[in-house]
């Protein structure tokens, strides 16, 4: 195992729920589920006290996004239908989702970590990888400092795993949750990692896990001891090799500090299915709005796109996409609308539409686009 690399994975504890508890401290220690709509906003009484919605009162098709550890103890996890969760914990509190608040706290905790260790790979709203290789001090002391900084900046706790690579750190941050620190020591691979189910490896999804189970491979130890030929026959050469290495704790993907977005898109699912011809005016307006929204996203992030695409989902759930690549990168609404309109011309419009989306890819920053040496092709002047 490579020992000079030291990578931390930091995962905020029940992030959305914890942010809500900062606002509603009276809910601390109770089973709380996030996943409601704005109607589930707590109501403030005359005396200043709040009344909360209960899971059992919920009617709808929503799913839970997070739950507090108390709710998890009752069997309510993220991604569960709210109606189903209500059966398990009818008296649990239901709160609406407030992404703006979560993004705010996300920025705060990332900034706090960056003040201690600047090499950070952003993995989403509530988790990051941190390269600690160049940070002096031993791992435990750094982890404690990071946790302290996060608490000071946000009032929230997190769990940290520190190992020589991202793969193991991701597994380790989950071993002692919440508010834990797990640092990998000699012999930990065999004793702490191997007994875990294979699906704990980030990259072994439900499908691969099912296939592994069919081969009698359940734990990471089983995977480490598996016959390489058998794996290769079932998963192909590169995925098999990757899994084998992963099971032995070998992985060396670098920390990606600056991730350039590959695509930026906007889409909308209609409240009722729309017909391309009968609802032409309405659709056209939505289409133009989507393009304007996409243009705004591009401009805000300072990107221009060479490729514009559209996505259609029909009433039978089939998806059709079309795209067009331009000579000159664009980010203004009318040009995007024109390019997307051209894509639409090439799409079949014989069925009703459920969803319409517009996508920009082949992105470059405006700066790069301007810095590119240009050889300016003149156009025929008609």
């Amino acid at each position, binding site marked *: 195992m490579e020992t000079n690399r030291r990578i931390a994975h930091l995962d905020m504890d029940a992030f959305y729920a914890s942010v809500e508890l900062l606002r509603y401290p009276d809910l601390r220690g109770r089973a709380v589920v996030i996943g409601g709509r704005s109607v589930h906003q707590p109501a403030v009484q005359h005396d200043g006290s709040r009344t909360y919605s209960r899971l059992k009162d919920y009617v709808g098709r929503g799913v839970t996004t997070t739950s507090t550890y108390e709710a998890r103890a009752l069997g309510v996890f993220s991604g569960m239908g709210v109606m189903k969760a209500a059966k398990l914990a009818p008296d649990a509190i239901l709160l609406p989702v407030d992404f703006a608040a979560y993004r705010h706290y996300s920025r705060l905790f990332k900034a706090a970590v960056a003040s201690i260790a600047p090499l950070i790979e952003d993995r989403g709203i509530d988790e990051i990888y941190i390269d600690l290789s160049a940070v002096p001090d031993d791992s435990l002391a750094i982890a404690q400092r990071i946790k302290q900084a996060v608490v000071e900046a946000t009032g929230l706790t997190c769990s940290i795993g520190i190992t020589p690579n991202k793969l193991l750190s991701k597994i380790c941050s989950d071993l002692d949750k919440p508010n834990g620190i797990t640092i990998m020591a000699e012999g930990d691979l065999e004793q702490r990692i191997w007994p875990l189910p294979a699906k704990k490896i980030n990259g072994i999804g439900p499908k691969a896990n099912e296939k592994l189970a069919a081969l009698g491979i359940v734990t990471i130890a089983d995977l480490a001891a598996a016959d390489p030929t058998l794996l290769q026959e079932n998963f192909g050469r590169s995925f098999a090799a990757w899994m084998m290495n992963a099971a032995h704790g070998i992985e060396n993907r670098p920390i990606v500090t600056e991730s350039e977005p590959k695509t930026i898109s906007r889409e909308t699912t209609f409240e009722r299915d729309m017909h391309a011809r009968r609802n032409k005016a309405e659709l056209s307006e939505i289409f133009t709005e989507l393009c304007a929204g996409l243009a705004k996203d591009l401009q805000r992030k300072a990107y221009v796109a060479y490729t514009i695409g559209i996505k259609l989902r029909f009433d039978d759930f*089939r998806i*059709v996409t079309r795209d*067009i*690549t*331009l000579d000159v990168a664009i980010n203004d609404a009318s040009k995007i609308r*024109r*390019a997307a309109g*051209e894509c639409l*011309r090439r799409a*079949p419009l*014989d069925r009703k539409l459920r969803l319409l989306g517009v996508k920009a890819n082949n992105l470059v920053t405006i700066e790069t686009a301007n810095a*590119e*040496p*240009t*050889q*300016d*092709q*003149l*156009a*025929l*002047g*008609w």
Partner: protein
Amino acid sequence: MLLFKGLRDQLLTPLQSVSGIVEKRHTLPILSNVLLEKDGEKLTLLATDIEIQITTTTSTSGTEKLGLTVAARKLQDILRSLPETAEISLAFEDKRLQLKAGKSRFNLQTLPADDFPRISATTGTTTQLRITQRQMRRLLAYVQYAMAQQDIRYYLNGLLLVVKGNNLIVVATDGHRLAFTSEALSETFSPIEVILPRKTIIELSRQLDDSDELLNISLTPTQASFTFGKIELISKLIDGKFPDYERVIPQNHTKSIVINRNQLLHSLQRVAILTNEKFRGVRLVLAANSLKILSTNSEQEDAQEEIEIDYSGEPLDVGFNVTYLLDVLNNVTTETVELRLADSNSSALFLLPDNASFKYVVMPMRI
């Protein structure tokens, strides 16, 4: 019920002439199929992508009358992999098509012939032209490379066909360059202009042969049909206004050089290796009795070629996308070409000494 009996190529050849337009992935599954219709001793094959439709016939035996559709590509792949001398039979049994050849058996799913979409021939004013396949093939070869591809200006993704007096004119452009040529017809017609889709043009060029056999072209305001040999190709037209091509063909370019086509082509091909990959610009530097061609790329590498020419006019330094220059030189067949220029912001005009009708206009690049 027997649909066909005969030698492999008696079916494979007509199938290949219709299957080229079948889209691999289409939202209407039946469009991956070819329609086979037997009427006694005649078997008709038809394929379409809704924009274009190709029909052809082959002979078979028996008196049956039936029709079905079957996956074009699968049928073609099976036929192609059978020996050339194989005796094939196709029979329709229990909604499936059974293909037998010697000891080989294949059962293919079918979809009903009645469900197959067909482009119906439009009525209305029709212009009927006749031209040899060779003439049309050459007309297309001289201009089709200049058609736009997936351009936002959809009317450029095709070829303009104009009948004017006794002239058949074809024009293609992508907005940066334009190719124009024409051919005299034996009759005089009232003027008509249509834009044929790119796919139609590519399919036509693929299928026309270099013979004196006649091609019948029939044009209506919304449709064009081409009949040659046993093939009938019907195409929808692109609805749009093609740019005024006459305006961009320069009349007063004074600098003129005549160059051996292959020599210029080969020089450009070599210099093209070190052009900027994205823009592909080359500089043409014209001086007394010399044409230099220069390129540089983003890695600071450069190339230079010099061709001796007969020239005594003013010097000129002008940039072009090398692809546009290679395209014309690769697609015309003459020994020499004439290149007319004006200044570094004006187009270049390529002419052919033995073909007064051909014109190719390229706009320059600022390098």
